[in-house]
């Protein structure tokens, strides 16, 4: 897919601390650098990882370096590791042209478990996202990750989805290379499988 | 059981725990992770959020509806305002002198519990066990030896009922309980409760006459008095003695009651029930007769067990002299009168009795 008219592609990977947000955005960003893009990645570390909401902004451009945070309403692609976080991010950064890939598996906040808040029905959340964006693809990434060997690899599955979707002008091959290098010493086959399952799945599935 | 509105842990905290009314009976502890028993007080770690719960329903200071409880236990309302519902009152003691020597007075409780266990009336009994004769802990006894280890009065409060709930889970058959008035009242409330299922297992309730108990703060005081010496027995002789007696191996220590009055649990001051009116059998002293117990038989179940024990020769009965009986009734009424007239309204709000009875007692 070509870069948007502005010559800039804003992707936000969103989820809960501990879901592997940072690794996913690093893989995507490294691949983009390899393909010759200017890349900026903005993240929140530290306290947010203790179960808080985490967003990684990955901004690609052919011409110049941009600041690391996407302005309001300017995300082109949102990859949600968790449905409520996905909706939260869409609310702040989405627009009617945004494309979304989401893993519908909830991670319950302590506020919900304590009874202070209610967790909405996932269908309602996906419906709300659909109202706000151009297209939404739902991928059971945790289930696919289990197939690959460990549910914790859902982030790699989602990177595969991003790769296979064609939403970003980064080559699938480049992303695959980076995945291989990243996990060279940590279950390389399983992670590669997770990536490939993601690529396959997004191509097979229609948007909601 | 009644039209009582059962409440929850927040109300328990407000009405009982924060009001200094907790008698450490143990009924609300061991039910859930939110309430612990700490040194003679029940402590609410955090309200559980339920508006209705067992802790409040079992608590003998949250609410005691005397008419309802009478109907539940005895089938009808009491006629005897001094002693509560009863079938007979007598003197009794354990036949074996060995039983009596390890007991406080006549050994009737030890003998009755042992009899009930050995005849299979109950499979286990929840008792208060003391290692050092000063403080005690609840325990589940299943045989004669274990029962005898629990003989003797305990003056520092022991949260016996905490172990009753545990016993209903552990013990397959019937359970017996020996406890003070508030404790037996709590167990009756457990049996009557809509919230509790396993209470069906509770078979025999033996109640001890009770006027007051010390908080665990008394432990340090007594230990300091006694030093490392072994305590054989602690006793409060009848008035007009006004002393508290500690018998060690070596000597007899007498302490004026005034010195230890500060350790009495405040909750005891609002207790209406000297003779343990909801038990199957209530057992107390015979003033001046160290070797005998006063026994009040209240229910059919109690009567059956006591008679059985008498028949096999484990218990030796004797009629109770009239003046002793009058003295007992007078003592009980005096206490009720005092509680009804001298206690702050909010501290006695837990107790529901018929207006006409209140009037009769007071005048």
């Amino acid at each position, binding site marked *: 897919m070509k870069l948007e008219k502005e010559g800039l592609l804003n992707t936000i990977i969103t989820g809960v601390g501990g879901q592997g947000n940072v690794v996913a955005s690093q893989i995507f960003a490294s691949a983009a650098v390899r393909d010759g893009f200017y890349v900026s990645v903005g993240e929140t570390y*530290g*306290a947010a990882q203790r179960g808080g909401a985490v967003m990684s902004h990955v901004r690609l451009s052919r011409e110049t370096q941009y*600041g*690391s945070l996407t302005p309001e309403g300017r995300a082109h692609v949102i990859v949600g590791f968790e449905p409520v976080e996905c909706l939260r991010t869409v609310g702040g950064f989405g627009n009617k042209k945004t494309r979304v890939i989401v893993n519908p598996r909830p991670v319950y*906040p302590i506020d919900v478990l*304590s009874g202070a808040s209610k967790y909405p029905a996932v269908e309602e959340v996906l419906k709300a996202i659909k109202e706000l964006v151009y297209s939404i693809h739902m991928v059971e990434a945790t289930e696919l990750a289990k197939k690959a060997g460990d549910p914790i690899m859902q982030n790699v599955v989602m990177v595969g989805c991003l790769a296979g979707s064609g939403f970003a002008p980064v080559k699938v091959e480049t992303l695959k290379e980076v995945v291989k290098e990243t996990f060279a010493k940590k279950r390389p086959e399983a992670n590669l499988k997770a990536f490939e399952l993601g690529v396959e799945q997004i191509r097979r599935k229609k948007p909601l | 059981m009644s039209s009582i509105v059962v409440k929850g842990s927040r109300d328990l905290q407000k009405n009982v725990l924060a009001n200094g009314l907790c008698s450490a009976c143990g009924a609300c502890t061991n039910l859930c992770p939110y309430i612990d028993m700490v040194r003679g007080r029940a402590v609410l770690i955090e309200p559980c959020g339920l508006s209705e719960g067992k802790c409040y329903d079992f608590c003998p200071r949250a609410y005691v509806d005397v008419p309802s409880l009478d109907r539940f236990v005895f089938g009808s309302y009491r006629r005897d305002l001094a002693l509560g519902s009863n079938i007979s009152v007598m003197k009794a003691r354990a036949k074996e002198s060995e039983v009596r020597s390890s007991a406080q007075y006549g050994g009737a409780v030890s003998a009755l519990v042992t009899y009930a266990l050995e005849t299979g009336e109950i499979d286990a009994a929840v008792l208060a066990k003391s290692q050092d004769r000063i403080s005690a802990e609840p325990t589940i006894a299943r045989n004669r030896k274990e029962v005898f280890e629990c003989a003797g009065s305990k003056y520092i409060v022991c949260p016996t009922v905490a172990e009753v709930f545990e016993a209903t889970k552990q013990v397959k058959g019937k359970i017996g309980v020996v406890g003070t008035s508030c404790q037996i009242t709590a167990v009756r409330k457990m049996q009557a409760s809509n919230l509790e299922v396993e209470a069906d297992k509770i078979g025999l309730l033996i109640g001890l006459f009770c006027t007051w108990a010390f908080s665990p703060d008394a432990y340090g005081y007594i230990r300091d008095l006694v030093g490392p010496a072994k305590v054989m027995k602690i006793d409060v002789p009848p008035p007009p003695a006004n002393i508290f007696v500690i018998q060690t191996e070596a000597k007899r220590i007498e302490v004026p009651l005034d010195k230890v009055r500060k350790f009495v649990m405040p909750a005891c001051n609002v207790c209406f029930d000297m003779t343990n009116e909801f038990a199957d059998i209530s057992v107390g002293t015979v003033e001046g007769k160290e070797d005998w117990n006063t026994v009040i038989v209240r229910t059919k179940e109690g009567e059956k067990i006591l008679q059985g024990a008498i028949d096999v020769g484990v218990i030796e009965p004797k009629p109770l002299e009239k003046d002793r009986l009058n003295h007992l009734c007078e003592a009980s009424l005096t206490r009720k009168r005092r509680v009804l007239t001298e206690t702050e309204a909010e501290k006695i709000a837990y107790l529901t009795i018929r207006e006409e009875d209140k009037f009769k007692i007071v005048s």
Partner: protein
Amino acid sequence: MSHFEIDEPGKRVLLMGNEAIARGALEAGVDFCSGYPGNPASEILEALARAAKKSDFHVEWSVNEIVALETAGAAASTGLRALTAMKNLGADVCADFLMTVNLSGTRGGFVLVTGDDPSAHSTTSELDTRNYARLADVPLLEPATTQEAKDMTKWAFDLSQELGVICMVRTVTRISHSRGVVTLGPLDRDKRSAEFSSQDLWTSGSSTIECMFHSILHEKLKRAQEKFEESKFNWYVGKENADFIIITSGTGWLYSLEAVKLLGLENEVGILKLGTTWPLPEKLVASHLKHAKEVLFVEETDPFLEQNMKILAAELASEGVGPIRFYGKKSNHVRGEFGAGTGELNVDVVIRALTEIGKAAYLSREKGYSEKAEKLLGSYVPARSMGFCAGCPHRASFWAIKKAAKWDGRDAIVTGDIGCYSLGMLPTGFSVSKTLHCMGAGIGTANGFGNLREFGLDKPVIAIAGDSTFYHACMPALVNARWNGSNILFVVLDNNTTAMTGHQPHPGTGVNALGDSSPRILIEDICEAIGAEVRICDPFDLEKSVQNLYELLQNEGVKVMIFRHECPLAFPKEKKARVYVDQDKCLGEECGCVKFCTRVFGCPGNIWDYEKGKAKIDEVMCNGCGLCAKICPAGAIIVEEVT
């Protein structure tokens, strides 16, 4: 994965800002590095430690920031190149030395890198450390991009060495933790040798000597300023001699650029971007103030440039500067969620400032979108508070403290400190701790609370600190408590790591920054030497922990409880036990439980099955620690070890 230490000059790599700073130090040939873990600066030293394993230079985590600065300062005084990195609040801790080593000077390049945290994402203060440069009279550099983070750090060493004074490089979260493309430079392989003779004097002096050194420091600053006038880190873009200019530094540069672009103002406004922000390159700034009629300051967090340049403008009034309409924090145009002078910058903040000033109109997306989104979020998006990780021993520790305090019944005062366990103030920690300030303030303030009996405050006082915090800041306060008779119970949460900042080692872990083994200095030994009553428990043994805490609370004097249990993230188990809930035994919402594990205990591994009305375990989040199995009142949670 990143290759910040590779020897390939000219290569383009994606680096985190902190890695770029580390790279800059390597390119400058740094010899001696020190610091203390702190967000957002922790990765600087971690990266340098990784490089030091392969090359031969010194990297250490120091016990706190002042020792870190002192130890590096000494190295620099011998002619070595030294770098100290810390978070913003670390500057407060080392301020005493900064305010004297600026005067005593340096021989080798000496660079202090401070990482600020606008919006306080992971800190307890938005402190803007640029103010320290002004206070200390030392040169200040502010990188605006990842590339500058590298280049400025490298240059800072040369600058420092030439001037003979420590130089500050100030970064923020969005530079430190963001990643950008960096073109690498050559690595410096020169090995310097350290020289310091017994004849050397290295002091800030006092009385006349200090005043003399102070004056010399001012001279150095003047020379710095001259260099700054020509610095390639300062530039002006946009309309020549524009009436309206934006003056910016740090992250403000790229945000302003993008804002101007989005508003179509490229040909109307000018942007003066400064990288050398103290001392101000006055001539350069003056040249632009002369043509400006309106100036918008875009910086974070304090109005540092804004105030200093207003002073400059006032000074230049007689030379034809002004009158200028100034916009920024004072005018409330540049503001965060809670107002001006607080909160981080982003493109939208700058856009809003420009549109409010009236420069342009702007719609970020389709009309009505934001309102619609807000409504949907209100209906469907619950808050997501922070919480302890699954398997975290702090959860057990705080529950034990809560119980013991309730058992005690005297309304104990609990003071908190800095670390993962700061979350003890939140529901995840059962809202047990009630105070939070800076490193060591827990036991520091407890000293006071525990000594107010004569004023009628006679409650038990419990101070909490972590293991790393203990070595950093708690020891003096513990001594003080003993010495001045304060009645406190000090609970040290020892999880064998510095967790919140990324699991760095500390003096109790037996390992140093390079991962080599080092002497273990035991917390209990120090506490016993001070004369405290010390007990050690595993918080996972809840019954014992509560009992021991309760007993300690009944005693007088200084008591220490060490809750010792390793952080599960720092020391992950080989095989995770399988934990599940026996659905038949689970009491759920019934009296006797009322969802104790999910509603109260709050481990993210304990979740609720709304359909069945029972608890269950989230196998992805669950850590296999088995703590919930211990606290379940029905014994319904089963732990199956996996062999």
